[in-house]
């Protein structure tokens, strides 16, 4: 199982499909947070098996377990009657399980043919046999019905063509199971039609296709079997023929809002606007307009990739804005630098605290005071005592637990790291706060603490935008909700209309032109 080379196996052709893949009682936790709990299902050859659910329901985690990227904490996989232990994607490949992930795994500098046969190099003594490779490529392309040139650099292809390269790689290995995670998310309308045809032909040829998708109509038109996940648990597995979009949405919801949220204290609807976004367009954002009032918590919901974070960064002036204006407290925000935005009272909690929020190797103190060092320094000289006092107060207020303010933030739990970002923001005393995924990867206790902080900041007059993939969170906190899709704000929900059903219906609704 370890010294495999990927040769096209003449004995395992598409006409002799593999057996069932049985997933039994699989569970997976990430840092104490359960991502999958006790999930069992059977994936049959020759069928398209769709996995659906809200963001964070565990679909991708399950897909990664099947493709060997993640090892489950509990439970077993059985393939063709044999127990299957996958320690890496490479081992999964050797079993004929291949993944086409959200992020494409092609090498831009190599040619199409080289990418297709990557890792299964057709070579003698280390030298690639180019003619042989091209010959096999042509055969394969004919079989798949793709018109790709083998000698073009893969990096110069469109996303859809790059995806074809990945699919050809799957075909070249006679994959018995193909896991596709959001394959059409990056594709245009007619490209996804082509992709659908490929998925169907893969199934016809006897492969099992595991399709993870946000697009319900795509799921309904392609899948034979549909498994719905919610909060890492399996809700049900049904035949696609009996399902409708409504019944699928119902399956993905099915739970009332818990009391994990602080009581809402609605702001004054006549309060002055602190942020006015007018016809704003930027990369990933088109023509967004809305108003945020003093003390208001505005939720922005939508699927991953709908343009929520892009909108946040466009407002924060971190990305180039192509059209439209942002007015902060009545005055237009110009230029593009986070430095200026923060100076004007606009703060951002970025979506990924490790990459965009914290200096992981540095101390708690340095991380907290970074944005407003001017408050604890004179003429550029840091007043150490004043800084320590300020940071210590902020840590108390945000309930950050650490062994001291000299501790490296990499040693803190996810919840404490996130609260630390709030300590930094509170020091900025912003009039507008954009919190992008404020509780991602945070334990339940810290979640509540962060909710309390957000509500308290709003009560003190800060206008807050909460962006979250957890619908429950958006609905539990926000006074008003905007739903985004394809970079646009497509719905504004208030009062009675602010419920999961309405948000999901808007977020999942498909536009014909997409």
């Amino acid at each position, binding site marked *: 199982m370890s010294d495999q080379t990927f040769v096209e196996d003449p004995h395992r052709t598409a006409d002799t499909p593999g057996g069932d893949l049985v997933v039994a009682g699989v569970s997976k936790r990430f840092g104490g947070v359960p991502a999958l709990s006790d999930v069992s299902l059977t994936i049959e050859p020759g069928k398209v098996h769709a996995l659906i659910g809200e963001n964070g329901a565990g679909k991708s985690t399950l897909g990664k377990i099947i493709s060997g990227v993640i090892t489950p904490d509990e439970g077993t996989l059985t393939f063709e009657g044999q127990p299957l232990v996958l320690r890496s994607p490479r081992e999964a490949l050797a079993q004929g399980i291949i993944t086409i992930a959200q992020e494409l795994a092609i090498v831009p500098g190599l040619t199409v043919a080289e990418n297709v046969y990557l890792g299964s190099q057709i070579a003698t003594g280390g030298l690639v046999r180019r003619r042989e490779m091209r010959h096999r490529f042509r055969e394969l392309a004919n079989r798949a019905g793709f018109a790709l040139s083998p000698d073009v650099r893969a990096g110069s292809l469109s996303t859809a063509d790059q995806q074809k390269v990945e699919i050809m790689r799957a075909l070249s290995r006679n994959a018995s199971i193909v896991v596709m995670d959001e394959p059409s998310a990056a594709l245009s309308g007619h490209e996804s039609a082509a992709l659908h045809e490929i998925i169907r032909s893969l199934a016809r040829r006897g492969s099992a296709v595991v399709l993870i998708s946000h697009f319900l109509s795509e799921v309904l038109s392609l899948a034979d079997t549909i498994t719905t996940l919610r909060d890492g648990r399996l809700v049900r597995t049904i035949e696609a023929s009996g399902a409708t979009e409504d019944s699928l949405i119902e399956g993905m919801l099915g739970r009332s809002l818990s009391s994990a949220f602080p009581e809402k204290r609605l702001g004054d609807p006549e309060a002055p606007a602190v942020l006015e976004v007018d016809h704003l367009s930027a990369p990933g954002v088109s023509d967004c307009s809305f108003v945020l009032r003093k003390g208001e918590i505005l939720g922005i919901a939508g699927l991953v990739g709908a343009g929520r974070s892009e909108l946040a960064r466009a407002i*924060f002036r*971190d990305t180039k804005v192509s059209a439209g204006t942002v007015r902060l407290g009545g005055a237009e925000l110009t230029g593009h*630098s*986070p*430095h200026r*935005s*923060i*100076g004007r009272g606009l703060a*951002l909690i*970025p979506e990924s605290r490790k*990459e*965009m*929020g*914290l*200096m*992981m*190797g*540095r*101390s708690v103190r*340095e991380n907290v*005071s*970074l*944005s407003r*060092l*001017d408050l604890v*320094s004179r003429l*550029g*000289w*840091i007043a*150490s005592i004043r800084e*320590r006092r300020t940071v210590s107060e902020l840590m108390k207020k945000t309930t950050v*637990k*650490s*062994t*001291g*303010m*000299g*501790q*490296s933030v*990499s*040693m803190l*739990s996810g919840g404490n790291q996130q609260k630390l970002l709030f300590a*930094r923001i509170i020091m*900025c005393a912003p009039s507008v706060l954009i919190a992008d995924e404020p509780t991602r990867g945070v334990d339940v206790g810290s979640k509540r603490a962060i909710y309390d902080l957000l509500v308290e900041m709003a009560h003190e007059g800060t206008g807050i935008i909460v962006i979250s993939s957890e619908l429950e969170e958006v609905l539990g906190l926000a006074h008003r909700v905007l739903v985004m899709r394809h970079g646009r704000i497509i719905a504004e929900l208030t009062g009675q209309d602010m419920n999961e059903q309405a948000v999901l219906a808007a977020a999942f609704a498909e536009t014909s032109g997409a």
Partner: protein
Amino acid sequence: MTNQAPDLIDAIESDASESSTLRVGATKLLGSWRTAGIAIPFLLLFVILSIWSGPFLHTTNLINILDQQAATLCIAAAGTLVLVAGGIDLSVGATYGLATVVAGEIAAHHSPVLAIAAGIAVGLFVGLINGLIVTVFKINALITTLAMSFVIGGLALKVSAGNLIVLSPSGGFFKFANAQFLTVPSAVWMTILFIVVLGLLLTRTTFGRYVVASGGNAEAARLAGVRVNMTRVIAFTLSGGAAGLGGVIDISRLLSAQAASGGSALSFTVLAGIVVGGTSIAGGEGSVWRTAIGVLFIALIGNGSDLLGVDPLYKQIVLGLILLIAVGLDSWARQRRR
């Protein structure tokens, strides 16, 4: 870094039970390596040399080492800021060479003050250009400064017309680096002052924090409102300025200059000193005083092997191995943090 004592008190006072003790232990060990780091091997080497070699501990020898290392120390001190800010400056050797010939040409005919000012100004200017290319055009710092070192080297040849510049020891220019105070030459005093100022700049000022933040996580720093580009430009400018200062100190000390002096050998010695001092090549971590120890450590290896009559080739091998160990420890420390 300089606030180590209060931080330690923090750590002792509060409850450490939350995180796993093993990880805390490993990180503390690494933390203390970063803090004490090179100081321990340096002291060891110092003691060994004192015992083995009679002339080593003589004041003259020790002051000589410092005097010889003055330029390298200044350049490495400023180079530390560049590395901590997430950059690298390989042009310092060439800049040093350019500054020596510019200062030399001017000192031969004009006032010493003008020569000194011009030498430093040339360095600052080169540094500014480096910084702007790296930040505005977003060209990799390693490549930028490597390319710049060719440009500057060519300019230095042009300025000196390829000649060796020799100055007379009578002028005021000679005094710049050779004036004695408490039997220590002014070059050493200036170097000490420069290191102290840069050390405080890195640890005690808002600019220093911005330098650390820019190298620690540039994206996070930018989103937190740090002007990362400006910070890096200033760091490069300081590095260039230090190379200019080093060049001026050395021509005043030695009274001769040519375009080829310094060069890539100096750039690499500087970089080696910084890295041996425990400054992370990935940025976000480092200290000026440890760089100073690192440079002196390398100098002691050279001085010691000369005094003990060791074949110079061993000196090079030992230096290379030490460098590998320093870089290895650094990347190991970074992986542990993940």
